[in-house]
């Protein structure tokens, strides 16, 4: 069996593999950033946690700035405190991550939402920013 066949890498050496990993991860991240900033025209904001929609702070067609409040959810927040898991119902507000415009509001106050499922707001963002 040749050394190449015994090797755990397709590269000449582990060092080459390390460099390839750095380059590949840089390319992957760059592609995602360019795609999100310049190609994707709008994003669908689904619930980031399981919960209940308690308030929508914007109206369809409204312009929003980065940091503006979009909606709030009543969620169960779990946190370790003094080695005991505490569960609290809290209202959590979610904000715009980039300047943009509200295209659609699909969530209704009182809706029960599941994490990553069910559209709440559709938002277009300013070209070149990361939504």
């Amino acid at each position, binding site marked *: 069996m040749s050394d190449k066949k015994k090797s*755990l*890498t*397709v590269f000449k050496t582990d060092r080459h593999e390390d460099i390839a990993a750095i380059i590949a991860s*840089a390319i992957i991240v760059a592609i995602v950033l360019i795609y999100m900033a310049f190609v994707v025209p709008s994003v669908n904001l689904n619930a980031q946690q399981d919960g209940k929609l308690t308030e929508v702070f914007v109206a369809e067609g409204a312009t929003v700035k980065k940091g503006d409040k979009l909606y709030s959810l009543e969620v169960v927040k779990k946190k370790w405190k003094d080695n005991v898991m505490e569960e609290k119902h809290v209202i959590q507000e979610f904000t715009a991550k980039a300047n943009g415009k509200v295209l659609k509001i699909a969530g209704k106050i009182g809706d029960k939402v599941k994490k990553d499922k069910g559209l709440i707001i559709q938002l277009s963002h300013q070209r070149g920013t990361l939504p």
Partner: protein
Amino acid sequence: MEDKNIFGKLLAIVPGLAIMVGTLFVLRVYVEPWMSQVTLFGYKGWLVKVMSLNYIVMSILLGMFYRNVLFGGKIPGWAEDGFRTTRLFIKIGVIMLGSLYTFDKLLKVGGVAITLIVAFVFGTAIFILWLGKRLNADRSVSSVMAAACGVCGVSASVATAPGVRAKPVDLALCIATILGFGIASMFVSPYIGKLLNMSDYQFGAWVGTGILNSGQVLATCLAFNPIFAPGTAVAYGEIWNVVRVISIPFVVFFITAWYWKNEAAVERVSLSSIIASKFPIFVIGFVGMTALSSLHILGAEGSETLRVIREVMAWVFGVGLVGLGAYIDVREIKAAGGTPLKIGLIAGLLKYLLALIIILAFIPKEGAF
């Protein structure tokens, strides 16, 4: 085969890689969602939630099935090059994990991680060198085992072997022992963690300290909690993992220096030359990614951009973990035996249990970030 041009080499990767990607696709898109809906013993999603049979664990199991059952113990030549991209995918995933942190978060737990890793890495190495002497093991066997159990499984033992003139058979026995131990701990640890009601912080710290291989640390953390986000088991475990990987050249030097003490006729090398040749430079990529995250270049926490980056990361890791499973050769593990097995099991178990006790006693459940 050896004279292929770049296109030939890329083409040779395709079949094996297609199996890895295809396997992950089926598991993530069809199998895991189906299993999450299946009710067993009156509990919806019992297989995923109680048995921790998420796509990560299934990826590894299926990889093992391919090699040991479907391929009869050896990855066939047509798929070999594709499967040899496994470590590349795991390294890309590790670098991308840097996006989960900012430097202030790393500083919060970095001190604890460095203290624990340095104590356990060098403590284990010293213990094995002592235990090897007690068991009258060959000094080169003790040296390779110290590197293997102390710091980073296969990488460290292979790196140490030439300096301590270990025989190939001893190296193979050491690797078989630590692989067997690593695989057992990879499947058992998530259940122990849940049984002991460990938090993500405690579990990541324990697994990062007690398990010996980067891929296995990540797989174990993701089996415990499959979410890629700050504050999860994989986010904490990776900090420990990176500190441990960085310590490889220092441990290799420490062990070879110990070996040289009673050996006149060996070629001695300096710490700087070991660092130059053995330092895992992909860690620089991890730090670079953390720098981008600290400068908020990757998008704000909670943004769609970060969600997409983490989704891509999950796919990259998943592909690597199918390959990790395919590199588990049951026959190699069965070959473990003799003094390396005794030393490896005693030291490995001691490290694993001691790390668990220390984590439970001194590390709070509440995470640092």
